[in-house]
C-alpha cells in the first residue's frame, strides 16, 4: 500500500463503494442471504487507516466490516464469494458478511458482536511482538461500541501493557437508531483518554486526512509502543442493515440524511485526481467487481455433508444431531 498516494486512496474508496452497491444488488436478488450492514459513506476511514498500515499489521473489523477487509487487502472476488456463501469465499462460505476474515492479509475478521474486537487484536499484536515482530494493530469500532464494558476493559489492557493498537472509532452518529447523544455520557474521546490513551479526531469523510492522522499516530505507536485512539466523524449513507430497506425505521430525517450524504468520501478523494485518471480507475474497479460477482455466482455452494467441517481445529469430530 502506497501510503498517502491519492490514487490508492481513490481506488480503495471507489472499490468499497461499488463493492457495497453490488452487494446490495445481490441482497435484493437473493444471492446474498441475510443481508449486510453497508459501509456506504464511511469508506474514507477504512481506506485512510489501511493506507498507513503495513501488510504485516493486523486489523479487527466490525459487523459493518466489508470496507476494513477490502482496504486491508483481501481479494474482492473471494470476499464477494464469501457473502454469497460459496466454497471459494474467504471463509469457504462459513462466515458470511459479519465474519469475513483473511488471516493472510492481516484481517482477523469482521465481528458480529459489538465491542469484541478490541481485546482480540490487542492479544494478537502482543503475542506477535513477543516474538520480536514489530507490527501494530487496528481495532475498528462504532460509536455504539464505546458503551460496551468489554471494549473499555480492552483499552485498559492495551494501555497498561503498552500494546500498539489504534482504536478507530467510526462515529456515524448512531448505533442502529440510537443517537450518540442518548447513548454516550461524557464524550467518546474521553473514554479512551481516561485510560491514558492519546486520542485524536479526524474528518472521516476525507481519506487523505484520515491517512495523515493515522500515519502520525502509528509513527508514535511504532516508536514507543502504546495504544492510541482515533475518532473519525462520518455518516452512514444507507441503512443500518439492508433489512431497513424493507422495514422503515424512523430515526433520521431526510434533511439530516441529505446533509450527511453531501460530504462524500468518494467524491472528495476523486476530486484530487485528474478526471481521466479517475475514469480509468473507475473502469478498472468496475471490471474487478464484474469479475468478482461473476466468479462468486459461478462458484459452488458448500456440500451440506461438510457442515461441521472446521468446527474443531484439533480434529475432534462432533456427534451429529441424530435422527
Amino acid at each position, binding site marked *: 500500500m502506497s501510503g498517502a498516494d491519492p490514487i490508492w486512496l481513490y481506488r480503495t474508496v471507489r472499490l468499497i463503494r461499488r463493492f457495497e452497491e453490488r452487494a446490495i444488488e445481490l441482497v435484493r436478488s437473493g444471492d446474498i442471504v441475510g443481508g449486510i450492514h453497508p459501509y456506504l459513506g464511511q469508506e474514507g476511514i477504512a481506506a485512510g487507516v489501511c493506507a498507513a498500515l503495513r501488510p504485516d499489521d493486523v486489523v479487527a473489523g466490525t459487523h459493518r466490516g466489508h470496507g476494513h477487509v477490502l482496504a486491508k487487502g483481501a481479494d474482492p472476488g473471494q470476499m464477494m464469494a464469501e457473502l454469497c456463501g460459496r466454497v471459494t469465499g474467504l471463509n469457504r462460505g462459513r462466515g458470511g458478511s459479519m465474519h469475513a476474515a483473511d488471516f493472510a492479509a492481516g484481517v482477523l475478521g469482521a465481528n458480529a458482536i459489538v465491542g469484541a474486537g478490541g481485546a482480540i487484536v490487542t492479544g494478537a499484536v502482543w503475542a506477535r511482538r513477543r516474538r520480536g515482530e514489530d507490527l501494530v494493530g487496528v481495532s475498528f469500532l462504532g460509536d455504539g461500541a464505546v458503551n460496551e464494558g468489554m471494549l473499555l476493559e480492552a483499552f485498559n489492557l492495551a494501555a497498561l501493557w503498552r500494546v500498539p493498537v489504534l482504536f478507530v472509532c467510526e462515529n456515524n452518529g448512531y448505533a442502529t437508531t440510537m443517537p450518540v447523544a*442518548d447513548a454516550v455520557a461524557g464524550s467518546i474521546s474521553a473514554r479512551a483518554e481516561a485510560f491514558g490513551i492519546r486520542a485524536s479526531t479526524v474528518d472521516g469523510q476525507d481519506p487523505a486526512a484520515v491517512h495523515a492522522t493515522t500515519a502520525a499516530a502509528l509513527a508514535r505507536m511504532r516508536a514507543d509502543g502504546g495504544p492510541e485512539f482515533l475518532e473519525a466523524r462520518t455518516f452512514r449513507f444507507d441503512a443500518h442493515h439492508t433489512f431497513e430497506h424493507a422495514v422503515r425505521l424512523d430515526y433520521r430525517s431526510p434533511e439530516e440524511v441529505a446533509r450527511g450524504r453531501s460530504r462524500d468520501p468518494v467524491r472528495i478523494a476523486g476530486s484530487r485526481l485528474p478526471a481521466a485518471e479517475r475514469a480509468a480507475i473507475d473502469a478498472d474497479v468496475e471490471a474487478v467487481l464484474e469479475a468478482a460477482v461473476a466468479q462468486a455466482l459461478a462458484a459452488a455452494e458448500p456440500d*451440506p455433508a461438510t457442515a461441521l467441517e472446521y468446527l474443531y481445529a484439533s480434529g475432534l469430530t462432533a456427534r451429529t444431531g441424530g435422527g
Partner: protein
Amino acid sequence: MPRLSYRKALNRALADELARDEEVFLLGEDIRVAASAVTAGLLKRFGPERVRDTPLSEQAFTSFATGAALVGARPVVEFQIPALLFLVFEQIVNHAHKFPLMTGGQCAVPVTYLVPGSGSRTGWAGQHSDHPYSLFAHAGVTTVVPATPADAYGLLVSAIRCDDPVVVFAPAAAMELRAEVSDPVPVPLGRGRVHRTGDDVTVVAVGHLVHDALAVADELAGEVSVEVFDPRTLYPFDWDGLLGSVARTGRLVVVDDSNRSCGIAGEVIATVVEQVRLQAPPRRVTRPDGAVLPFAPVLDRAVQPGRELLRHAIAHVSKDG
C-alpha cells in the same frame, strides 16, 4: 376469528401488561423505533420512561433491571440477539437468579428477558444463530419457548407476572406464524400442551419445531399414531404432563433446536427413562454437539434438526421394541 401473528402477540402482551401494571417497563436496544417490531406503538402509548432505549451496555442494563426488580419493578429486557444472553449470563444466573435464596427471602427479582428471533435467522451466521435455552434450564432459570401466537401472548404475560426471572425465547422460525386467536389469555408457566393426541409414540417438540412435528405426524398418520407434546416451558418442565403421555404411548422421540450434549432433549429422555419403562429405546433429534451455524444457507440448514431426521427417528422408535 381474528388472526394474530406471533410477533403481534408478543407486542400485545407487552402492551397489555404495561397498561395493567405501572411497575412494568421495557428496556432494550432500538425499542423506541421498534427495530424488532415487538415494541411497535409502545413508545407513543407509554412514553420514554417506560419504553427505554439503552446504550450498548448489556451487562449494565441487565443488572439495572435486577436492581429495579429488587425494589418492586417488573422490567422486561429485550435482547436483539440470542448470543447477548451469553454476554449477560453472569448477570442473570449469578445475580438475578440467586438473589432470593442468598438473601434468605428478602427480595424477588421479577425480570423478563425477551429474545425475539432466537435460533437461526438464516444468513446471520455463527454469532447470531444460537438457541441457548438449555443453558438456562440447566441454571434453573424459568425458560419458555412459545410455539404459537396464543402461547406467545399467554406465556409472555405470565412471565411478566412471575416473581422470578424468566427468559422468553421467541424462535425466529415462529415469528411470522399467524393463527386464529379471538381473545388471548395468560398461559400458566410450567404447563405443557398436547397439540395432537396419538397412541404409538410421544414426540416432544420445542418451539417452532412443534409445527414440524405436527406436519410429520400428519404425514405419518396412516402408519403411526403420533402424539405431539409441546412443553412450552422448559424449566420448570411439565413432567407430569409428559409422563402421562409417555405412559400411554410407551415410546419417545424428542426434537429440539439446541446443541445435543446436555440439551433439553437429553434431559427429557433421562427423566422419562428414570420413571417409565419404554417399549423401545428413545431417540432425539437436535443440533450436533458444539454446533456453530455456518453461514451458507445449505450448511445452516444442515445443522438444524429437520423433518427428515424426525421421520427417521419416529420410524426407528416405532419399529424397535
